[in-house]
């Protein structure tokens, strides 16, 4: 199995500067317009190495609450939407009935 570091042709302990230089060299070799598949693989490797670096920098301490994505405004909007839909159904109901 090819690791992200293998993909960029660098050692597992490469410095961030070396990672970036290797990434740029690979971009030159595989431009997005002529080698889209290789480009995507290079990019994915670069992103995964950088993500690893960020984690080492202590990003993992920033715990995120699991429900963070569901914001209170969203719940409010959903409620309003639901109510609006009810109103509409009532009107339809009246129209249907008479």
């Amino acid at each position, binding site marked *: 199995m090819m690791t992200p570091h293998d993909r960029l042709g660098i050692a597992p302990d490469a410095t961030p500067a070396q990672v*970036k230089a290797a990434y*740029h060299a690979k*971009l*030159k070799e595989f*431009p*997005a*317009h002529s080698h*889209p598949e290789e*480009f*995507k693989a290079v*990019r994915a490797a670069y992103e995964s190495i950088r993500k690893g670096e960020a984690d080492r920098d202590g990003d993992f301490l920033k715990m995120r609450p699991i*429900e963070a*994505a*569901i*914001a209170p405004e*969203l*719940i409010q*909007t*959903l409620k309003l*939407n639901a109510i609006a839909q009810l109103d509409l159904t009532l009107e339809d109901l009246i129209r249907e009935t008479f």
Partner: protein
Amino acid sequence: MSRAIGIDLGTTNSEVAIVENGKARVLPGENGDLILPSCVGLSEAGKLLVGRDALRQYAAAPERTIKSIKRWMGTDHKTTLGDRTYLPHEISAIILRSLKQRAENALNEPVTQAVITVPAYFTDAQRQATKTAGEIAGLEVLQIINEPTAAALAYDLRSEDTERVLVYDLGGGTFDVSVVEITGEVTEVLASHGNNRLGGDDFDRALQLHLKRRFQQEHKIDLPDDPVINARLLSAAEQAKIELSTHSFTTVREAFLATKGKTALHLDFELARTDFESLIQPLLDETLAAIDRALSDAELSAEDLDRVILVGGSTRIPLIQQLIESHLGQAPTDGIEPDLCVALGASLQAGVLTGAAIDAILVDVIPHSLGIAVAMDTPMGVMPGLFSVIVPRNSVIPASRSEVYSTFADNQDTVEVEVFQGENAIAQENVPLGSFHVENLPPKPAGTLQIEVHFDFDLNGILTVTATEKGQGQKQSLIVNDNRIDRLSAHELRQAQANLNQLFELDETIEVSAETTTIDFSPELIQLIEQATAKLETLEGESAEELQSLLDQIAAAPSDESIDLEVLQSELEDFLYYA
């Protein structure tokens, strides 16, 4: 291989550029003008006008003149010109065709391939419409690239050190901000944000309304809601806006706008830069908020920026420069050509794609998130119709991403995959791109059947969505294009190209016949025309346009019986007397 051009197809102005010996340059028109106003019209005699000639007649003949068509790209908004209606991409095709011709004349060789720029924040539909416009104009569109990215490409840094640059691009109709990292020849976009309906046009319109209010305050009557008066006010507003970029005060003068009893009413007052600034401040505050979002998406703060570049004609407004400087804590970089750098960058990318000796590597991002509608567990119970993002905004393109979803009900035998583009957590609030079903799923309890949804987004903005049931491998896929303006079939494309050719040829034949008709004028009128032509040399801006349009109408009179020459003659007399 013939050379490919780069085109900046702007809301107000367009340019075309080419790379020669590794250097990009903007190609001039016959009169030496580097800029082609993005304006299309028909003269009184039915002659096709593109660029400055069309713009010149706008205040006098708004019903025969189309400005700012870019604002409608990707919609089915119809515009009437002469005896037929046009879709936005058909009008854009006329402008592109004109730029192609300009390039062919300047280079003395046929031109068939182009890179065209669009605002970074353009949606998929707007990009497809732009590509179609290029094809109708007879161009193979090699790539659609983002305007701020093109500007960054043109910005020659030549340094191996990484620089982080913020590109603030405020044009006639659209606003973009991109955060870009440049290292040697690699230009990598970290994040983009924008507004497809914010630009100089909005400032003109705010000022136009202000002029109407001032007129009302002074004369105690409302200006009639007449297309010609509105067009004159809009042109006056634009002129005043431009003046106020270099002067603290300007005078707005428009004669004979209305009558009260027997008195003709004019607009004539002084406008201060501060008046204009207070009108546009709320719009500019929005752009500052967009800067903050782009920075936060790029995980950078203002101090991390090495440079700020201003692109687009509207960035000449001094208030914009002040606001950005105080917001980001550094002054924008000088020495960038805000009108030309986008076309220059597009030509560089065109050079790269056709194998010219240019070292430029571009890594760009997708401006809007892509995903599907799903049911999710929320504190209010299971909610259907929520937006699950598969390719987040600012992902590098081309991009391939997958997510695995499971069934919602026991023995569910069908799933519908509805694809959306946008940032709202409620799927329906985003832009629908299409939908499809995966059918005949094996009966399984809810939540146990797994479906992998794979998104593949290529450099041309084409999205392929594939849904695969993981157990037995049923597969269904969809290639997403815009469903309002489908891409043209080969036949439709040929038809559209033929129509366009006809329009351009018609133009040439009529031009010839118009030349021979001026002899019917009376000696008095000929003298007046001579005076007016001399006067035209000394006039600028609005009044020059007004006079030119009078002259145009007179010139068109012999071939159009509906024109009353006597009325025009007395108008011309009045004008010369007044001026």
